[in-house]
């Protein structure tokens, strides 16, 4: 624990040679630097995964297209899915959690700084391992050079007979390694929040971001580990001749599905809960009102966490379970809608009657609310097992989960970038480029993913490499692809904004948004030790108390 006193250096160090600087970044155990490393590595993988998505979209632009071969197409959608979930979404959210949680609860660092660094490098090297499969995956048989069995790697496709060479092994090892990294980070977040809160920061005064990340970390512990176990089993099957998923020896392919989805459904909530956390910080600040229904928000989050552990098999309605299982998973899946609805209600309640400032961060947040609602509604549709039988494995499902992940998670993340970038770098992001980014991305997003529902309803299955003309899919797919390119342009604007603003942005000062949580009380970027004296808080909005001594929140708690 970081109980020993940190001496405050007098005057920041002068410009160091870049080798020195690089060495500092590589060996750092500072939670802020590790947070930034997480975020930067995730952005790197976001661009790579995005390029893969564009390749997929070019291939599907019109029928009988020959842009890439079927083999390459399979690799692209496998790598796109794996990259986006494990090496973009997870690291970027962990990055924000790493950066913000200690600052928000008034701690000087995470509970285990070295474990923190270890976890980051595990996750990052896991990503490199996955991409090394492009070079090293050909293996002894010279077959395949990247995983191409879909990012679910359903048995028996993952078995040695159907996936020769080493590409699947790279996939397995990458997920195993980065999974261990995630577990380390989760333990770290839990220990930090439970043990290192500053004086006066009771659990019911903690910022919602810290609360939601606590819940998220708890879910990581229970959800990532089944995946690790399943990966170990797959390795045993592939290397030691085991029979876990080998149906010819009595094993079960369905068991892999269960293990995979036991992990993967909670994973969706692991990704979305930190985004709820961003919303719960950004919306109040730009509505100039405290969050509506704080205790209910916490309760709803915990509720989502519990229920989401028992919904996994709604991904498996089409494999033929008995009607009891179908009904059970239909009911639990619909039940998740209730606490989620409470949350959306509370955010709207926060905005209601507030003096809303339409900064870019707020625009992304409002778009998030709208799109997440729609994603939730198609989710409820899919939860009905008869409906799911009709549309599962079609482009309708692809559109649904991209609505959640792009329309929900990515929009929330962009909001978080615009909100916290000034704290991380000391410079404001350009609002003008931000507006361009927002509107381009919004238009591209809706063009792509609204339209994508329709070929799904018309029967276009997912993961096909090309299709016959004359089914009414051509125009729709062309529109979807055009939307994808508009999104790509928006991402370029965003990256340009990040880089330009870093050098030329307006100086941010400590508290550009007039916000209320502790991270805004220190300089931007915060000093290595965060707080020269550990703060004492007496309400949920410590900075409000500081700015308004005549009418502090603590009077009403």
């Amino acid at each position, binding site marked *: 624990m970081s109980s020993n006193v940190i001496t405050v250096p007098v005057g920041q160090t002068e410009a160091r040679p870049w080798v020195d600087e690089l060495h500092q970044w590589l060996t750092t155990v500072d939670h802020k630097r590790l947070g930034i490393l997480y975020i930067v590595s995730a952005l790197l993988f976001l661009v790579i995964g995005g390029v893969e998505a564009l390749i997929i979209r070019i291939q599907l632009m019109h029928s009988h297209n020959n842009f890439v071969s079927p083999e390459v197409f399979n690799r692209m959608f496998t790598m796109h899915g794996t990259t986006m979930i494990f090496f973009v979404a997870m690291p970027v959210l962990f990055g924000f959690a790493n950066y913000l949680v200690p600052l928000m609860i008034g701690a000087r660092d995470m509970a285990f700084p070295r474990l923190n660094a270890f976890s980051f490098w595990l996750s990052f090297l896991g990503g490199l391992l996955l991409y090394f499969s492009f070079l090293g995956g050909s293996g002894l048989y010279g077959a395949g050079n990247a995983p191409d069995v879909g990012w679910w790697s359903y048995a028996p496709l993952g078995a040695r007979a159907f996936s020769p060479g080493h590409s699947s092994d790279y996939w397995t090892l990458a997920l195993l390694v980065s999974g261990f990294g995630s577990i380390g980070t989760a333990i770290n977040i839990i220990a930090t929040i439970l043990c290192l809160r500053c004086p006066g920061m009771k659990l019911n005064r903690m910022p919602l971001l810290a609360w939601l990340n606590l819940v998220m970390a708890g879910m990581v512990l229970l959800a990532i580990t089944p995946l690790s176990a399943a990966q170990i089993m797959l390795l045993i099957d592939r290397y030691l001749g085991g029979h876990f998923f080998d149906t010819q020896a009595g094993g*079960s392919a369905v*068991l892999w599905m269960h293990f995979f989805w036991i992990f993967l459904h909670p994973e969706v909530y692991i990704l979305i809960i930190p985004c709820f956390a961003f919303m719960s910080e950004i919306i109040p600040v730009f509505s100039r009102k405290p969050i509506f229904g704080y205790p209910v928000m916490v309760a709803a989050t915990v509720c989502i966490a519990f229920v989401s552990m028992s919904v996994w098999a709604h991904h498996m309605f089409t494999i033929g379970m008995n009607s009891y299982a179908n009904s059970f998973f239909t009911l639990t899946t619909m039940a998740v809608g209730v606490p989620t609805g409470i949350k959306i209600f509370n955010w709207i309640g926060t905005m209601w009657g507030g003096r809303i400032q339409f900064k870019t961060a707020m625009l992304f947040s409002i778009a998030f609310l709208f799109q997440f609602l729609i994603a939730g509604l198609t989710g409820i549709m899919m939860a009905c097992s008869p409906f799911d039988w009709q549309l599962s494995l079609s482009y309708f499902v692809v559109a649904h989960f991209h609505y959640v992940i792009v329309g929900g998670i990515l929009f929330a993340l962009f909001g978080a970038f615009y909100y916290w970038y000034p704290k991380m770098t000391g410079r404001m992001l350009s609002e003008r480029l931000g507006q361009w980014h927002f509107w381009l991305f919004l238009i591209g997003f809706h063009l792509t993913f609204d339209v994508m529902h329709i070929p799904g309803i018309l029967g276009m299955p997912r993961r096909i490499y090309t299709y016959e003309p004359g089914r009414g899919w051509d125009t729709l797919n062309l529109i979807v692809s055009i939307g994808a390119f508009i999104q790509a342009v928006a991402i370029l604007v965003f990256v340009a904004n990040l880089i330009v603003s870093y050098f030329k942005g307006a100086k941010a000062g400590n508290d550009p948004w007039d916000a209320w949580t502790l991270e805004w009380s220190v300089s931007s970027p915060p000093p290595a030790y965060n707080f020269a004296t550990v703060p004492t808080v007496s309400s949920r909005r410590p900075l409000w108390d500081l700015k308004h001594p005549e009418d502090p929140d603590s009077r009403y708690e």
Partner: protein
Amino acid sequence: MAGLIIAESAIFTIFVVAYLFYLGKSITGPTPREVLETPIFYTICLLSSSLTIHFAAKCLARSITFAFLGLWLLTITLGGLFLYGTAQEWHRLIYEHGLTISTNLFGTTYYSLVGLHAFHVTAGLIMLAIVAVFGLAGRVSVKQSGRIEVLSMYWHFVDAVWVVVFTVVYLLGR
């Protein structure tokens, strides 16, 4: 450590579920009933090592270093005995009954579940041995009591897992 234990429990749960799911689903022999013998002696060894480590940690907290070292070494011995027992059982299974991890489903699930546990025992023993080396060098005192407590928590967890594994593999599984 509590977090790690939750995570580890989830991993073991998955392996236990796989074992139970595949019970009796092997297409070829040998079956658990034919080849497994209940390792009562070694189970007693492992479970009693939980007691000894508990008292060792207690002694250290009261800074009775000598008793701590004695009990600590006893814990290592008991844990080592348990590992020896597992090794002997595997040797017997492999050479007398020809059961390996690739023979049938029982082999696959049995070796991976028991092996995962044995791996945790080994990891625990390595950590215990490091503490023992420091202890013999006179470097472990009441100041490290907190860390020793954490380590003993891990060891209790490994024992608790064995209770589950034992029940599943040797009692229910036959």
